């Protein structure tokens, strides 16, 4: 789903205009990016023109769009004060008014997608570890089969293996089921590695939007860059040696090796 904001105002932001393109993993970078996610999820009030796939959001039809968007928050907050994982899933399905024939199968499928074991259903939420809670959040979000998935700091607290797995899931959702995925992170390294399209906020306005690589390599913008990008730019600056744009350190090392030799 393509989302288009034009001249949208809210409590925090003024005159926002941007497009979230279809079939890309979109990153949001800059202060208050999490508030922007809330605006896209229609959780915060806004005034202005918003299109979802060419249909304008109005007061009388906004619940239609609200249903197709799922926001995965930074932290897990227990909506119903239920401690059992299984009852939480069942209550969540009822709360979201999903029509499900086989609840157990649906829950197990969702758990399998994110790589949690089924025996987690017998456990209590208060005994889960940080990463298990994070994966539980994703499992809940995937239940309703949303068209737009908004992720607030999804990679924090996950180790390398769990993160790689999550990226695989996200990429598959994007490619196979053409979901729109928006990621907010204040760590530029993650955005550079995992997103293709970037929207940069500065002073509660849109600074720039465009291809992730081009923005980070552009000298014009005064933003904190990923470590690897700053290094490549520093080499160009100090020694006038042009290294190719790389995403992994392994590739960079080879370039440096051939260059220094």
């Amino acid at each position: 789903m393509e989302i288009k904001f034009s001249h949208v105002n809210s409590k925090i932001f003024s005159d926002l205009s941007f497009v979230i393109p279809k079939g890309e993993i979109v990153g949001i970078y800059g202060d208050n990016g999490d508030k922007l996610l809330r605006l896209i999820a229609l959780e915060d009030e806004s005034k202005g023109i918003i299109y979802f796939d060419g249909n304008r959001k109005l007061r009388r039809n906004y619940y239609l769009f609200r249903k197709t968007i799922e926001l995965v928050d930074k932290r897990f907050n227990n909506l119903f004060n239920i401690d059992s994982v299984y009852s939480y899933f069942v209550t969540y399905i009822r709360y979201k008014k999903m029509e499900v024939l086989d609840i157990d199968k649906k829950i197990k499928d969702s758990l399998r997608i994110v790589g949690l074991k089924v025996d987690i259903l017998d456990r209590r939420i208060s005994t889960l570890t940080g990463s298990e809670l994070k994966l539980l959040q994703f499992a809940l979000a995937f239940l309703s089969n949303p068209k737009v998935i908004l992720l607030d700091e999804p990679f924090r607290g996950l180790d390398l293996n769990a993160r790689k797995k999550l990226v695989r899931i996200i990429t598959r959702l994007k490619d196979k089921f053409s979901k729109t995925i928006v990621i907010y992170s204040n760590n530029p390294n993650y955005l550079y590695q995992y997103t293709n399209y970037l929207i940069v906020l500065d002073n509660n306005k849109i600074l720039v939007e465009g291809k992730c690589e081009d923005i980070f390599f552009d000298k014009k913008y005064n933003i904190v860059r990923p470590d690897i990008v700053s290094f490549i730019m520093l080499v160009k600056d100090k020694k006038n040696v042009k290294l190719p744009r790389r995403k992994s350190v392994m590739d960079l090392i080879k370039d440096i090796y051939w260059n220094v030799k």
Partner: protein
Amino acid sequence: MDAVVRVENLTLGPFKKLNIEIPLNSFTFITGSNNSGKSLLLKVMSGVINTKNVTYNKEIIKSDNDIGFIFNLSFNFDSVLKTIRYPLECLGLLDDKINVLVKDIAKDIKISHLLNSKIKDLNEYDKLKVMLATNVINNPKLLLLDDPTLYLSPLEKEDFMGILERLRTRGITIIISTSSLEEVIYTFNSNIYVLDKGVIVSSGEMLDVLSNDSLLNKVGLELPFMVDLSVKLAYYNLVSNINMSPLGMVEYLWK
């Protein structure tokens, strides 16, 4: 050096006969993969989970008030000033003395400008600093932080580690659990323990542990960029030691 906390023969959750000793006035990181027991170990060391396997140095830690533990950012009051004052009010100090102490700590932790604001208006990092202030205002001797830097940006991480480093010079022993290694490089003389499924797989001085990249990657930890670059360049014999400054590295490589 004397130990502040000593954990002996701990068998709980993922741990089997774990031994760990935290020296006085040290800066210790506990890191590891997901579900390796980082938070559990901190809970045990802070006394939140009661076991017989933990012993404190009685001369330094006389009561529970000498241990601070930050594990989440939930506040009881909405006003920043009230939140910071509360631990002192509980001790029954005089109003004048409280005001002086609050002003001091606010200056140390760089939150003087926030004292009159509301908690709900603060961002993630300011909330963390307020939480830190409430925990160190009654001068604990041991401070434990459960993944404090999880949602901070790289710049904020550097700043926060600077604040903690200054607190350490006042005689506070600091133990941090962390799921990424980014913040580790902003400290000096810190020790690292790497956990994997409840077993300590590596421990020691910061740079010694970091230079073993194959082990850390196997555990599932990502090295900070400059360390990663140095370690991998060392394989090709291009550098000999870990260089933290990008500029120094560039000058060295293209000399």
